C-alpha cells in the first residue's frame, strides 16, 4: 500500500466517525461532566488522528508514529474514565484545570498583554 492510498482509507474512516457523532446531535448535560469530557476527548482523538495522517502524507513517518502516542494516552484516559465511577472521575479530570490554572493563568495574562503590545493592539 502506498502512503496516499493508506491515509485516504484511514481518513475516510475518520470522516465516517465524525459524521456519525455530529449527526447523533449530542447535547451534553450541563450538570454532568461525563458526556462533555468524553465527547471532547473523542474530538481530540479524531483531530490527532488526522494530524498523524497529515504527517504520513508529508513524508514524516517517524514523527507520525511519535504523535500516535497521544492517541494511546487518550485511549488510556477514556478507558479509565468509562471503566467505573465515570462521573466522579470526569469531575476530577475537569477540575484539575484549577491546579494548572493556578500556575499558568498569570503567565497567559502577561504573555497576552505582551502580544497585544508587540502587535500594537490596544
Amino acid at each position: 500500500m502506498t502512503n496516499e492510498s493508506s491515509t485516504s482509507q484511514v481518513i475516510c474512516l475518520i470522516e465516517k466517525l465524525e459524521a456519525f457523532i455530529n449527526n447523533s446531535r449530542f447535547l451534553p448535560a450541563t450538570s454532568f461532566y461525563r458526556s462533555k469530557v468524553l465527547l471532547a476527548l473523542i474530538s481530540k482523538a479524531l483531530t490527532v488522528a488526522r494530524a498523524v495522517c497529515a504527517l504520513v502524507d508529508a513524508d514524516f513517518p517517524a514523527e507520525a508514529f511519535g504523535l500516535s502516542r497521544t492517541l494511546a494516552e487518550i485511549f488510556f484516559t477514556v478507558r479509565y474514565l468509562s471503566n467505573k465511577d465515570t462521573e466522579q472521575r470526569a469531575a476530577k479530570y475537569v477540575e484539575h484545570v484549577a491546579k494548572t490554572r493556578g500556575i499558568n493563568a498569570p503567565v497567559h495574562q502577561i504573555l497576552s498583554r505582551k502580544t497585544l503590545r508587540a502587535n500594537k493592539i490596544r
Partner: protein
Amino acid sequence: MRRSTKFFPEKHYEPTRFDRDFAELAKNYKSAHSWADLRGQAKLMALEEDSYEFDEKTGEPIKQEFDYELLYWWTSQFVHATVRSLYAHGTAPGTLFRIRGSIHEEAGYSDLALFNVLAFVSKTIVCAFRGLRDEQPADILEEMRQVMSSYAQDS
C-alpha cells in the same frame, strides 16, 4: 503563580473573579501534572482491570498491558530525543554527514502510525460510548477492524 513571578518579576498579575474558586478546587490535587493524582498515571490507567472485558481463556478482567508496555513505550522513543529516534539521522563511517541522511530507514513507520490510528481510535470510541451509555457505531468499527487486519496481513 511561581512561574510568572520567576520569569516576569516586573509584571503585575491581576486576579480574576474565578481565582478564589479555582484555588479551592486546586486544593484537591497534589500535582499539576497528574489529574488522577496517580504516580505513573498512564501506567495505572492502562493496567486497571477492565469492568467490561474479560480474557476468554482465564475469565480474568483484561488490562492494556500490550498497549502500555510495548506501543506506548515504543512510540515514546520518537516523542523524546532518544538515541533510538536518531537512527535515520546518523552517518556511516567514512561518509559525509547529510541532514536526514538515512531517512529512508524510517519509511516503515508510516504503516505502524496508521495502524495505531485505527487501533487507538476504535478502542477510544468503544470505551467512550460505554461511558456515554450510547449505542456503538458498530458498522464503522467493523470497517476499521477490517482495515487493521489488512495491515497485519501486509506486514
